[in-house]
């Protein structure tokens, strides 16, 4: 296959938008604290009730990068995730390039997320590259964007992933 061509069976997926998936829990202080413990982040907007109440937000807010954690599926009881949501895009016919590796991630943070908010998201498949050979292996670069919304249908942020789906050469 020429490196410049993308098979039509993959081309047809470009541009598709998934349905929405809602996170299992509302934004909450306990999970915010667990995140802050992980990296020892002492930002008082996340963990200091009194400071946060006196701030422009009037209360605790979530670290912005937790947007993907708020929609991370529950571990139990088992939940079936649609295969077109998230960067993995598991339903693409790519059985011959089984290994996923995230290459880059760009996130935009538009609105604060507060305890009580329900975050849901959907994913657009922005692009699939032609077959590429790299030092790691050969495969396709898949670009997707997650769009995160709160319960008021406000866009709170986005994450654009570039994932390399490859096989070891």
């Amino acid at each position: 296959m020429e490196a410049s061509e993308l098979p039509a069976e993959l081309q047809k997926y470009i541009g598709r938008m998934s349905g929405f998936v809602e996170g299992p829990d509302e934004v909450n202080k306990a999970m915010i604290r667990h995140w802050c413990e992980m990296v020892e982040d002492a930002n008082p907007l996340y963990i200091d009730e009194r400071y946060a109440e006196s701030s422009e937000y009037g209360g605790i807010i979530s670290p912005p990068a937790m947007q993907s954690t708020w929609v991370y599926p529950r571990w139990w009881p088992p939940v079936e995730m649609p295969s077109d949501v998230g960067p993995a895009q598991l339903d693409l016919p790519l059985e011959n390039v089984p290994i996923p590796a995230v290459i880059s991630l760009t996130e935009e943070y538009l609105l604060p997320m507060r305890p009580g908010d329900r975050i849901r998201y959907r994913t657009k498949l922005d692009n699939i590259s032609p077959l590429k050979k790299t030092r790691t292996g050969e495969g396709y670069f898949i670009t997707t964007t997650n769009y995160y919304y709160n319960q008021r249908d406000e866009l709170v942020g986005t994450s654009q992933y570039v994932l390399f789906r490859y096989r070891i050469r």
Partner: protein
Amino acid sequence: MSFNRLCWEDVSEGDSIPKISLKLTRDRMVMIICGTRDIFPLHHDDEFARSMGYKAAAAPIAFLQGLLERCLTDWTGPTGKIRRISLTLMAPNYQGDTINVAGKVTRKYADSDNHKVDCELTVTKQDGTVSARAQAVVTIPTRG
């Protein structure tokens, strides 16, 4: 606790963003799963990770995102607002590694309603290996 309250007037292009460091102890690897909820075996199962071409279980990206956020708001204080972070992954982070994040201000500017800085951040390991590079946009309040 006391916090920085960085003001836009006090920032110059080229300013350093102070380094933070965290060691990936086994406890930390567990806290990362508690913090991110990401139980994909790549992040805790050495054998699975090796089957994917890694040397051992590796910390997830969300850990780096949390560390980048902390580096930025340790520097600005809680009145700095992170608007955008873009990161490129270059080397996995394994248990036992010490992860450092530091950066600098590359541009200072104002648009219609915000005073902003662009920053470059580098994530390095104890031996100098670059684990990730990131660019961030942060808004910072003006004095008064």
